[in-house]
C-alpha cells in the first residue's frame, strides 16, 4: 500500500519536468471553492444576526458549511504538497546530472561517522541511509488520513442539515453534538494528512540527498533528526489524540438531555477541539521550519561538492 500511495508523489515515466504542476492548478481551484463556501456562511451569519427568527437554524447549517469549506481548502493544500513532492524528485534527477558534470576531480574522503556542521549534527556513511520509521509511516498514512478526514467533514455537513431542521422544535442537541464531533475529527485527520505529507517531503529530501551523494561516489552526509522534527511529531500525535478524545466526548454529550448541562459541556468542548487543531497546526509550523533548515543544509552541501569535489 505504501508503494501505491508513494507512486502518487513521484513523477511518472515520460512526465515533463518543464511543464507546470497539475496538482497545483487543481489545488488552487479547490482552495477557491473552499473560500467561496466560507464567504456564503459569512453572508448568512450577518443576515441571521439581523433577523428575529432565523438565527439558530442558520447557525446550524452555516457551521457545517464553513467546516466543509475549511476541509476543502485543507484538501487543496494536501494536493499542492503532492505537487511539491513530484517536483522534488525532478530536482533530485537534475541536480544529480549537474553535479556529475560540475564536480571537480578529487579523491573521495572516507566516511567519518558523525560530523558537526553549522546546521547541526550529521552522519557520514558510505551508502545512503534508509528511511526512518516515521518516514515510512508518513508515506503510508497521508492518503488515508486525507480521504477519511474529508469524508468525515462531508458527513458532518449532512448532519448539520439535520441539526438545522431540529432547531425549531428544540430537539437539536444530539444532532449538534454529532455534527461538531464528526466534523472536527475530520478536520484533525485532514491536518494529520497534511502533516504526513510534510513528513514525506522531509523523507524525500533525506532520500534524494543520499542518492545524489552516493551516485557521485562521495561520503553520504545526512542531517540527524533535528529537535524541531521531534517536536513536530510530538505536537502532531498530541493534536490527533485530542481530536479523537473530543469526538468521544461529543458522543457522550449527545445523550445529555438537560439543556443547562448540555450548554456547559458545549462551552468547553468547542475550545477543547480548537486546542487540538492548534496542536496540529503548531506541529505543521515546526515541520515547515525543519524543511527550511534541511534545504539550507543541502544547498550548502551541493556548493561544497561543486567547489571541492568532496
Amino acid at each position: 500500500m505504501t508503494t501505491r500511495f508513494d507512486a502518487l508523489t513521484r513523477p511518472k515515466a515520460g512526465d515533463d519536468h518543464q511543464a507546470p504542476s497539475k496538482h497545483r492548478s487543481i489545488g488552487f481551484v479547490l482552495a477557491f471553492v473552499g473560500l467561496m463556501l466560507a464567504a456564503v456562511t459569512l453572508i448568512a451569519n450577518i443576515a441571521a444576526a439581523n433577523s428575529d427568527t432565523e438565527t439558530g437554524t442558520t447557525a446550524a447549517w452555516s457551521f457545517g458549511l464553513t467546516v466543509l469549506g475549511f476541509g476543502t481548502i485543507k484538501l487543496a493544500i494536501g494536493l499542492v504538497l503532492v505537487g511539491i513532492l513530484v517536483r522534488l524528485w525532478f530536482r533530485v534527477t537534475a541536480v544529480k546530472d549537474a553535479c556529475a558534470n560540475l564536480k571537480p576531480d578529487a579523491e573521495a574522503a572516507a566516511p567519518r561517522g558523525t560530523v558537526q556542521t553549522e546546521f547541526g549534527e550529521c552522519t557520514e556513511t558510505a551508502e545512503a541511509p534508509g528511511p526512518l520509521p516515521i518516514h515510512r509511516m508518513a508515506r503510508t498514512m497521508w492518503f488515508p488520513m486525507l480521504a477519511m478526514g474529508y469524508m468525515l467533514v462531508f458527513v458532518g455537513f449532512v448532519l448539520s442539515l439535520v441539526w438545522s431542521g431540529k432547531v425549531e422544535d428544540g430537539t437539536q442537541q444530539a444532532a449538534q453534538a454529532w455534527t461538531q464531533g464528526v466534523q472536527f475529527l475530520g478536520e484533525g485527520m485532514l491536518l494529520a494528512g497534511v502533516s504526513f505529507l510534510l513528513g514525506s517531503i522531509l523523507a524525500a529530501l533525506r532520500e534524494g540527498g543520499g542518492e545524489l551523494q552516493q551516485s557521485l561516489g562521495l561520503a553520504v552526509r545526512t542531517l540527524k533528526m533535528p529537535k524541531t522534527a521531534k517536536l513536530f511529531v510530538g505536537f502532531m500525535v498530541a493534536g490527533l489524540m485530542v481530536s479523537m478524545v473530543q469526538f468521544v466526548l461529543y458522543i457522550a454529550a449527545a445523550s445529555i438531555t438537560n439543556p443547562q448541562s448540555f450548554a456547559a459541556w458545549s462551552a468547553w468542548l468547542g475550545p477543547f477541539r480548537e486546542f487540538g487543531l492548534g496542536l496540529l497546526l503548531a506541529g505543521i509550523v515546526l515541520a515547515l521550519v525543519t524543511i527550511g533548515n534541511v534545504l539550507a543544509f543541502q544547498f550548502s552541501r551541493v556548493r561544497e561538492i561543486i567547489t571541492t569535489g568532496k
Partner: protein
Amino acid sequence: MTTTTKFDYEVTDRGPGYNKPQTMGNRLWAPMFAMAIMAFPVALVLSWVRASTIADATGPADIEDAARLGHLVAAFGFIGFLAVFAAISFAIARILGRFRKGGGEIQESVGNEVHTLKMPVTAKIFMLFMMMGMMTIGVSVVLHFVAAGAVGTWELESVARWGEVLEGFRRFGVAMYLFGIAFGLGTITTVLRFQTIRVGQLAR
C-alpha cells in the same frame, strides 16, 4: 532561447540573498509560534471557568458572566489561530528564502550569472490573503474584547448578536489565511520548477 524564458526572472552577478518578506519570515515565525502555544491553553482554561459558571448558573449575574467569558474565550482562541497561521505563513516565506539564497549561491559558486525568479503572482496572492486573514481575525478579536467589556451596559441579546456576526468574520478570516497558505505552497512548486530547469542549464 533558454528554457528559463518561461519565467520572469532577474540576472545578477551575485546571489541576491533574502528579500524583505523572507527576512521577516526568518525573524517572526518563532514569536508567532510562541504566541500561539500560549493563547490556546488560555482559551481552554477560560472555557472551563465558563462551563462551570453555566452549570451552576442561578441568576442574571451568572448569565452575564457566561456571556462575557464567551467573548473572551473566542478572543483568546482566535489570537491562537491568528498567531499559528501567521507562523505557518512566515515559515513558508522562510522556505522560499532558502531557495532564493541557496539557488543564488550555487550559481555564483559555479561562476555563472545568477538567475533569480522574480516574485510570482502566486506569492503576491499568498501575502495579500495572509494580511487580509490576519486583519479580519485581528479586528474580530478586538471587537470580542469590546463586547466582553460591554456586558452589563448592552442588552444581552445585542451581545449575543455581536458574537454571531464576529463568528462569521473569524471563520472567513481563517478561510482567507488557508487560501493564502495554499498559494504560498504553490509558489514553492514554481520555484522548484524554475530551479530544476536552471540546474540543467548550469551543467551544460
